[in-house]
Structure formats: C-alpha cells, structure tokens
C-alpha cells in the first residue's frame, strides 16, 4: 500500500463526558470522550493563512476564493460533480421515495436534495486517527493527559 504524505500532524482536544443511555434498560450512566472545538474559522482567517503560507497577495486570494465559490455554485446547480484541487469533490444527490409504478416516480417523489463532499485521499488521510494527536483536557477533575493511541495512559 502506498504511503500518503499528509504533512504535519493535527492536534485535537477532547474531554470526558458523562452520558445517560436512555435507550438501554435501567438507563446506565457511562463516560465517553467529547470533541472540544478549538474555534470557528472564517473566510478571512483562511485568506490570511493562505497568503502567509503561499506568499500570494491577499487581494488575489480573495478574488480567487469568490471565483471558486461561483464555479462550484454554477456547476453544481446544473447537476455536475465538481473537483477542487487538493480538497475534494462536491456533488449533488437526490433522495426519493420508492413508488409502485414508473409514472409515480416524478419530481414530487423527491424527498431531499443534498450537497455531498468527498475529500481527496490526502485530505482524508490527514484527518484519520493515525495522523491526529488526541489531547485529553481536564474538565471533570481528571488529571491532564497527553495521549495518542500508541502511548495511551502515559501522563505528562
């Protein structure tokens, strides 16, 4: 199997959370890790990072970003799947009811229209468990630990 170069590894924070399993008999209380969002990133942050990393003028990136959105919008609204370099493919999917006769299968039987995203192999690999380090944060009185799948349980 080919090794996919993913670049620097990612880092996410998680914290233990108490959950009540209502669907089980006796409603037992259990624990599980919950993802802690580091923050919300807007278009401006993306532009600033890309300008610094690629040494491209910000004005040019803003133009490019708008044009990219227009291109995806234009092609997707015609039912095409659109490939974006280093990111993935956007495509439209239809969900419909199953009906008894071909005549009944028309626009009215469509229940949902969805925009799907299929990431590129490299991006998918970068987001996988192998390439992301999980930091468990102290939220419920648990000592702060820096663990990954390989060295789980080793306190700092």
């Amino acid at each position, binding site marked *: 199997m080919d090794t996919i170069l993913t670049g620097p590894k990612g880092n996410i924070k998680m914290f233990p959370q108490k959950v009540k399993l209502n669907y089980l008999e006796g409603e037992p209380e259990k624990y599980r890790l919950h993802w802690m969002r580091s923050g919300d990133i807007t278009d401006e942050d993306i532009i600033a990072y890309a300008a610094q990393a690629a040494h491209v003028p910000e004005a040019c990136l803003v133009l*490019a970003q708008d044009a990219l959105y227009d291109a995806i919008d234009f092609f997707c609204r015609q039912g095409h799947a659109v490939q974006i370099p*280093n990111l993935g493919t956007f495509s439209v999917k239809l969900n419909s009811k199953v009906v008894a006769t071909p005549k009944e299968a028309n626009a009215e039987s469509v229940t949902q229209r*969805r925009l799907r995203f299929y990431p590129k192999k490299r991006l998918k690999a970068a987001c996988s468990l192998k390439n992301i380090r999980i930091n468990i944060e102290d939220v419920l009185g648990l000592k702060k630990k820096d663990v990954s799948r390989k060295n789980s349980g080793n306190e700092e």
Partner: protein
Amino acid sequence: MGGFKYRVKKVDIDLHKRKVEGYKVQLVNDSIIAEEEVVRYAAQSAGIPESMMRACTIAIADAIRFYVINGHKVSFGKFGNFRLKVENTCVDTLEECQADTVKRINLHFTPSTKIKDLLNKAELKKWDFLSESASSEENQSEE
C-alpha cells in the same frame, strides 16, 4: 438557469421478507467537472492567470486542511462548514476514558441553509435520452 435531470430507476425492496419491485428517482450526473476545468472557469471569471488561480486554490485548500486537523470548525464561504467528526465508544468508568476509545475520525461537511435553499429551488427535469440524442444528431448534421 441550470436544473437537475433525473431518470427513473427500478429497485427491489424487502417488504416483510418479500421482494417487491419499485421505482425511484435518480439524478443523472451530466459529468464530473475536472480540476483543470474548474480552475479555468474560475480564472476567467476572476480575471487572473490560470497558474495563479491554481496556486490560490491549493493555498486555500491547505489552509482549510491545517485548521480542520487542529480541531477548528472551518467555514467554506456560502457552502457550509468543515469539521472533524469523532466516533467513539462509551466506557463504564472515568479512568477508562482514554484515547483508545476513539474508533474513527472523519472529515465532515455540513452544507449551509443558503445552499440548501438554492438546491431546493433548482428545476428538476426528466431526462429524455431519446430526444437529447436526436437533437445532438441534428446539430451534427447542421455542422
């Protein structure tokens, strides 16, 4: 402008352990627009050279990747958000709650309500293969 084309597909469904024939609507994807074509279209509309457009697109994609793998929720213009989705198992005690319980991490894309509205407003037409092939033949003969 635009619109989706659909065709009717025959499907078999299990109804109380009995196979029943049914029909459903399936989208006809005209084609996959390749990276080069998307970059060319975007470069023309932005009025910048294709090579610059490609460099900008790659830089934007790398920026999205950087923020997503570091646990941020990234907004992708009017289209929606990218974020990581973590699948894990529940355990009985707090001490067992370690990184081992994480089964999978995936990249998740959530379309925005604006793009959902645009998709819902787009026209849905039945794909008529025969008339389309006839019209393309006519065009060829005219040429």
